[in-house]
């Protein structure tokens, strides 16, 4: 069975602080994708990153960075110098490549960035 765990239900930081959102997953598949999505108060899901199971390179995009470690089944997301606009719910998800591309989501982490 597939499982994605986001243990941090809610995090509050002050603007300009760095914050890391944790994601741990379980799967027996060897080929899979991991995703992060942002859900602002408006409700839509905003795609942030997709990483396949064979690519453990860390990625940086502006203030965002992702650390994928297969050895610990983790795919953590760091926001550097957080801003109020980063306030949202963030979801980590796993996609099964050989099972109709089905998604398994974590329960989400609500990030509050205060000015």
């Amino acid at each position, binding site marked *: 069975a597939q499982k994605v765990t986001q243990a941090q239900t809610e995090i509050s930081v002050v603007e300009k602080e760095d914050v890391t959102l944790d994601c741990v997953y379980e799967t027996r598949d060897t080929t899979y994708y991991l995703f992060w999505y942002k859900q602002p108060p408006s409700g839509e899901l905003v795609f942030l990153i997709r990483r396949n199971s064979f690519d453990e390179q860390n990625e940086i995009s502006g203030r965002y960075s992702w650390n994928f470690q297969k050895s610990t089944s983790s795919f953590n997301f760091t926001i550097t110098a957080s801003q109020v606009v980063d306030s949202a719910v963030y979801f980590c998800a796993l996609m099964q*490549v050989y099972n*109709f*591309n089905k*998604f398994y989501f974590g329960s*989400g982490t609500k990030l509050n960035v205060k000015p």
Partner: protein
Amino acid sequence: DAGITQSPRHKVTETGTPVTLRCHQTENHRYMYWYRQDPGHGLRLIHYSYGVKDTDKGEVSDGYSVSRSKTEDFLLTLESATSSQTSVYFCAISSQGSDRTLDNYGYTFGSGTRLTVV
């Protein structure tokens, strides 16, 4: 230009009434999905389709049925709505990727339908 639209965006209905949500795509993707989002659970798969008339259950399918009579439309029906089905429903579409190039996989979510059953 999103390639996927859900209708309606908001609906309030009474317990016991049937409700149908529609997902329409213009991308000609093979796979379509319905998910529901509830506090503390993230998104959970209700049903999915891997082709016209080909559908299967997800992890929370009780009380729901689906139909896909043409590639572009995937309908989710609540035969007799209950208060526990109050939720936000997301449709998604996915292209079937290639083993050789894993980056061929595309996945797009609709904007969501907020359903309230009173």
